[in-house]
């Protein structure tokens, strides 16, 4: 991986990232490919959304993606991470988001998918990830985002869902995975996103949270996820989208963050890593490009901070019956 001299202005090597995504899979001995098997649906969402943000969604075969995707659906209506795996709310959202990219949500039995998600709501308003009952505010976001895209939010108790999320709010304005858990940028994105989608942002202490979030920016320009942790490109998404949703993004130094993300690129082979000089992966490639989108980097389509989909895709959903 090459590094740049500080006198050059690094650019986004979009074509290299496109190529990286299209070819990422062919590494036979890589441990990364081994462990990605069960979460291929997430991997596909990250890769495809990045391609769309770079206006290259046309490089993949829509038919092949969708036919594979549908093999991941269970009779319960939920989607698995890959063919032959169990359904889970995580992969159900990714599947719906992928279909949204291709404007093919209509191929779904929406009643079925939405029922699968709605049934995962618990008595206290929280959501489980699947039948095994793990609870986490990530799942609150996933359920709300998914049902919103499918226009079935009325299938859950929104008031209770919001109440549970608010119970996870900490004094610093942030949110954790469960009540009392440490504020963490990833969880904050989920809670703020869910509140945004349900029109409940008035529950957020925007000034306190905005300050907590802008304190994530380190001297070199990158963002961390909690106090005294290292910067990581993925927080360029979670911190940034949260700041945008609460209207406080001007509190960080955008130029420095752009530079940090660009410095995480593999300029030769494409892909983006968690921090400069580390190995790249699809996850960080997506978050880096999505972060640049939020920072209005030229050549990248605009992304919706709550739905984590290109704005033109979200508009299409909103304006379709």
């Amino acid at each position, binding site marked *: 991986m090459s590094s740049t001299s500080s006198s050059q202005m690094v650019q986004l090597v979009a074509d290299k990232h496109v190529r990286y995504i299209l070819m990422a899979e062919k590494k036979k001995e890589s441990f990364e490919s081994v462990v990605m098997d069960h979460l291929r649906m997430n991997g596909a969402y990250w890769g495809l959304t990045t391609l769309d943000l770079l206006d290259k969604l046309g490089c993949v075969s829509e038919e092949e993606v969708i036919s594979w995707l549908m*093999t991941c659906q269970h009779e319960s209506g939920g989607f698995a991470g890959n063919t032959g795996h169990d359904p889970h709310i995580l992969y159900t959202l990714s599947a719906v988001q992928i279909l949204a990219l291709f404007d093919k949500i209509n191929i779904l039995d929406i009643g079925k998918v939405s029922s699968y998600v709605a049934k995962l709501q618990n008595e206290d308003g929280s959501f489980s990830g699947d039948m095994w009952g793990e609870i986490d505010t990530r799942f609150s976001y996933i359920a709300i985002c998914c049902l919103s895209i499918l226009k079935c939010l009325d299938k859950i108790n929104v008031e209770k869902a919001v109440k549970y999320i608010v119970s996870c709010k900490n004094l610093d304005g942030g949110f954790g995975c469960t009540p009392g858990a440490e504020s963490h940028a990833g969880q904050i994105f989920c809670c703020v996103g869910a509140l945004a989608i349900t029109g409940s942002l008035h529950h957020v202490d925007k000034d306190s949270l905005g300050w907590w979030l802008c304190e994530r920016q380190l001297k070199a320009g990158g963002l961390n996820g909690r106090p005294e942790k290292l910067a990581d490109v993925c927080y360029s998404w979670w911190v940034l989208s949260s700041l945008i949703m609460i209207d406080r993004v001007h509190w960080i130094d955008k130029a420095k963050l752009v530079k940090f993300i660009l410095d995480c690129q593999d300029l030769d082979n494409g892909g983006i890593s968690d921090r400069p000089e580390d190995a790249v992966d699809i996850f960080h490639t997506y978050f880096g490009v999505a972060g640049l989108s939020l920072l209005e980097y030229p050549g990248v389509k605009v992304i919706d901070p709550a739905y984590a989909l290109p704005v033109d895709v979200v508009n299409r959903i909103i304006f379709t019956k």
Partner: protein
Amino acid sequence: MNFDETVPLSQRLEWSDVVPLTQDDGPNPVVPIAYKEEFRETMDYFRAIYFSDERSPRALRLTEETLLLNSGNYTVWHFRRLVLEALNHDLFEELEFIERIAEDNSKNYQLWHHRRWVAEKLGPDVAGRELEFTRRVLSLDAKHYHAWSHRQWTLRALGGWEDELDYCHELLEADVFNNSAWNQRYYVITQSPLLGGLEAMRESEVSYTIKAILTNPANESSWRYLKALYKDDKESWISDPSVSSVCLNVLSRTDCFHGFALSTLLDLLCDGLRPTNEHKDSVRALANEEPETNLANLVCTILGRVDPIRANYWAWRKSKITVAAI
């Protein structure tokens, strides 16, 4: 649990009656994943028993092999739970199995959820063991989010609060910047049935926190914790002399970052603290001929200089000052 891990499954007598199922990726997989041979074979055999729903001892062993190759595979964890239930397997042994997996990679949700599932079945008797397990994980990574989540669940569901505040102290002695430990401290003083609650604990906690701040004033966590001790009680917050005096103490030092002391003082002023001459002198000593008469304004100006990456934030704070401070 003895099996010859080096012999491929296809060559083991035990598995000779099973036809492995290969993954059907479709004609041209969109995210085709290149597989290591051993992994591929193990998954093919797992697929076979998964689809035939075989809940036998050898199935249990196979899930173990599979998880040792890839502990992130949630379908394998699910199926293992089904097999454990069907066999009514010793769950204490299961705790050991989970610990073995955690040695290689403890950063996956599936492992922790599985641990919780087992611990819940075993009940309050394993409270100590769960605290011990999370303590070991935290000794390798003191900010491990899953471990902290599991620890909080253990305390809530199974008990064991007695030594938790001491444990937080231990971690903070090792690293006073550990935000997770500060968060846990807050969790204990507000949730523990053995302590009197936030207000009852406030005095001793303020004293504790101030000591921590003075050893390291550039610590975001300790300053936040100090403020959290007052929760919504603004009156107590601005009238506690030890709070404003720790700000003054830090500001008088030349060897450290002043940002958090300044922002805390700013908060106090905006919440109604009437600044003394000591406050004004302290702040003015840090000013570079900035011609501000309003103390809170001056603090914001200085903050814009000492914490330039957040200049916009401090400018906004300045614009919000309504206090007619002298």
